[in-house]
C-alpha cells in the first residue's frame, strides 16, 4: 500500500468519524467478548483440573458393598469385605501399577505427644498409597515394605498434625500415641488436596490390622493402571471384578456388591465436557466477531453506494477495477484489524485484572488466554476483515462509470 493510499484511507475515515467509530466498536466488542469467553472457559477448566490434581487420575478405587443379586444359594443383602488375599490377587494381574489397600480405624482415638493432644484421622495403608494420593514427603520418609513386613509401629504425619502437636519442633524420631499404642514418627508429608488431607496420619496396614483387631481385613483397594485408555481400564476393571467375584462368591454383574470408581473415566468425561465447552465458546465467540464483520461489510456497502459517482469518476480517469478492490479491501482490513486489536488488548487487560482480583472460589480458577488462542484470533480478524470487504469491494469494482456519472 502506497503512502497515498494510506492518506486517502485516513481522510476517508476522518470524514465519517461517527460511522467509523461505531463500526470499529462493534468489531472490538466482538473480540473483547471472544477473549472474555475463552478466558472464562479456561478458568472453569483450570478449576476442574485443579480439583483432580491431588489424586492419581489413572486410578481405580474399589469398595465392598452388599449383594443385590442371589448367587449360588447365597441370599441377597450379604455384606462383603476385602482381605489381604484380594490385594495379592490384584497385584498379580498384569497392567496393575501402584496398588494399595486402606484399613480404617473407626474408634475415635485421642492422639497425643507428651501432654499435647489432637484429633486426627488415621489411615493404614500400603507404601504405594503415596503414589495414589499424590502425597509429598517434606521430611523423613514414607511407609515402606519393611515396615509392613515387620509390622513396625511407625507413623507418617501430615504437616498440619506436625504443627499442632509439635509446634515447630522436629517430629522425626518422636513417639506419638494412637489409641494407647506408641508409634515412632518417621516422616512428615504435604498434600495439596486441601487442609483435611494434611490432618492425617498414615501407618502401615499390617501394623493396624494387628493392633486394632482387623485380622486380614481391608476396607478399600486402590490401584493405578498406567497410561491405559478408558476402554482398557474398563476391561481391567471387569477382570478385577471377576477375580473378586470368584473369591467372595458373588455375581460379577452385581453392581451393588462391588462399588467401583474409575477416575480415568471420570477425568476423560470431564475432559470431553471441556472440549464441548471449548467448542461452544468458539462458536459463540466467532459468531459475535462475525456479527462485527458483517457490520463492517454493511457499512462499506453503504459507503460504496454513497461514493458511486466518485468511484465512477475514478474509473473514468484511469482507476483499474483492481485498484478499487484494493482500496475497499484495505479499508475493511484496517478497520477490522485495528478495532480487533484494540478489543484484544482490552480483553486481555480485563482478564488480567479480573484474574488478579478474583477471590478464591469453587467455580473459576486462573482465567487466562494463551498466546496460541490470541494468534488464532488475530488470523481470524484478518480473514474476516478480508471477507467483510470482499462484497463491497467487488461492488465498487463493478460500478459502471456511465451510470455513475450520468447527470441528474
Amino acid at each position, binding site marked *: 500500500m502506497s503512502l*497515498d493510499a494510506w492518506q486517502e484511507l485516513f481522510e476517508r475515515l476522518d*470524514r465519517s468519524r461517527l460511522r467509523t467509530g461505531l463500526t470499529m466498536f462493534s468489531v472490538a466488542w466482538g473480540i473483547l467478548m471472544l477473549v472474555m469467553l475463552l478466558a472464562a472457559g479456561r478458568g472453569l477448566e483450570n478449576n476442574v483440573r485443579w480439583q483432580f490434581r491431588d489424586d492419581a487420575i489413572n486410578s481405580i478405587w474399589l469398595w465392598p458393598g452388599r449383594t443385590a443379586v442371589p448367587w449360588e444359594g447365597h441370599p441377597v443383602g450379604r455384606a462383603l469385605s476385602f482381605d489381604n488375599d484380594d490385594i495379592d490377587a490384584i497385584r498379580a494381574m498384569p497392567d496393575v501399577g501402584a496398588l494399595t489397600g486402606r484399613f480404617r480405624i473407626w474408634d475415635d482415638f485421642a492422639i497425643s505427644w507428651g501432654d499435647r493432644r489432637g484429633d486426627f484421622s488415621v489411615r493404614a495403608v500400603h507404601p504405594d498409597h503415596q503414589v495414589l494420593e499424590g502425597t509429598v514427603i517434606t521430611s523423613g520418609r514414607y511407609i515402606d515394605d519393611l515396615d509392613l513386613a515387620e509390622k513396625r509401629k511407625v507413623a507418617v504425619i501430615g504437616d498440619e498434625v506436625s504443627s499442632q502437636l509439635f509446634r515447630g519442633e522436629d517430629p522425626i524420631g518422636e513417639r506419638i500415641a494412637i489409641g494407647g499404642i506408641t508409634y515412632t514418627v518417621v516422616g512428615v508429608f504435604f498434600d495439596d488436596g486441601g487442609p483435611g488431607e494434611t490432618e492425617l496420619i498414615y501407618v502401615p496396614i499390617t501394623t493396624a490390622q494387628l493392633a486394632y483387631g482387623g485380622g486380614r481385613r481391608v476396607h478399600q483397594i486402590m490401584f493405578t493402571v498406567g497410561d491405559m485408555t478408558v476402554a482398557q481400564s474398563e476391561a481391567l476393571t471387569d477382570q478385577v471384578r471377576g477375580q473378586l467375584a470368584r473369591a467372595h462368591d458373588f455375581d460379577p454383574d452385581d453392581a451393588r456388591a462391588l462399588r467401583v470408581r474409575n477416575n480415568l473415566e471420570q477425568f476423560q468425561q470431564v475432559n470431553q465436557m471441556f472440549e464441548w465447552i471449548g467448542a461452544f465458546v468458539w462458536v459463540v465467540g466467532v459468531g459475535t466477531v462475525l456479527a462485527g464483520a458483517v457490520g463492517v461489510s454493511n457499512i462499506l456497502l453503504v459507503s460504496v453506494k454513497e461514493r458511486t459517482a*466518485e468511484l465512477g469518476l475514478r*474509473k473514468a*480517469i*484511469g*482507476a483499474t*477495477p483492481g485498484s478499487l478492490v484494493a482500496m475497499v479491501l484495505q479499508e475493511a482490513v484496517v478497520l477490522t484489524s485495528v478495532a480487533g486489536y484494540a478489543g484484544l488488548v482490552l480483553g486481555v487487560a480485563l482478564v488480567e485484572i479480573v484474574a488478579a482480583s478474583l477471590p478464591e472460589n469453587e467455580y473459576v480458577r486462573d482465567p487466562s488466554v494463551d498466546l496460541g488462542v490470541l494468534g488464532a484470533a488475530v488470523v481470524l480478524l484478518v480473514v474476516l476483515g478480508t471477507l467483510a470487504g470482499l462484497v463491497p469491494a467487488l461492488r465498487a469494482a463493478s460500478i459502471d462509470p*456511465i451510470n455513475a456519472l450520468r*447527470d441528474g
Partner: protein
Amino acid sequence: MIRLEKLNKSYPMADAPVHVLRDLDLFVAEGEYAAIMGSSGSGKSTLLNVLGLLDRYDSGSYTLGDTLIRDVSEREAARLRNQYIGFVFQSFHLLPFKTATENVALPLYYAGVPRRRRNELALQMLERVGLRERADHLPNQLSGGQKQRVAIARALVTKPRLVLADEPTGALDSQTSNDIMDLLASVNADGMTVLVVTHEHDVAAKMRRVIHLVDGRIASDRIQVPS
C-alpha cells in the same frame, strides 16, 4: 485520431434490443475541434461512451490512434483512458474533499506518477486554466466556471490525445459558457483533438465541425467557420 467503421451498438431491453448506433462511419483527424449534436435518444451519449472506452460496441471497428479497440479488458481500458483520453463532464465531478490541485493530480496518481511530480504538473495545469491562485481551494469554494476549469485541467494533466467533453457548459450561465468554450478552443489550438457533445447551437457554432446524429446515424457532418 478516431476511425469508426460500421459501428453498431444496441442495448438489451425488456421487449426488444434498442439499436442505438447503426452502421456508424466516422473519421476524426488529429487536432480537430468538433461538436456532436443530436436530440435526446439520438445516440450521442452512447457514441461518447464508446469513444471514451467507457462502453463496448457490438460490431464494426473503432481505432483510437493506432490502437484497434476490440475486446479490451477493463484493466486495459482503464489504462488507455488514463493515457489517451481526458474527460470533461456537465456536472464537473470533482471530488469534494480534495483541493483543486489534488483533483487535477488524481489521474496522475492512477498513472503511477510520483507525488511531487504530480503536484508540479497539477499546478502547471491550473496555471494553464488561470486558476493557479485557487490551487488550495476545495470545490465548494469555487464558482461553477472555476470548477469546470479545474475539471478541464484534470482532463489535460495526463497530456491526452483526445478530450471528450459531455455538455461542458450545460450547468453554466452564458458568459461563463463562453469562457469555457474559449478555454477549450485554446486547448484545441495547442494541438489537442477536442470532441464536445452538446445540444446547444451557440456552443456548436463555436466549433469547426458539427456532426448531427439522428436515430444512431449521422444525419449531417459539416465543416464551418467558428463564430
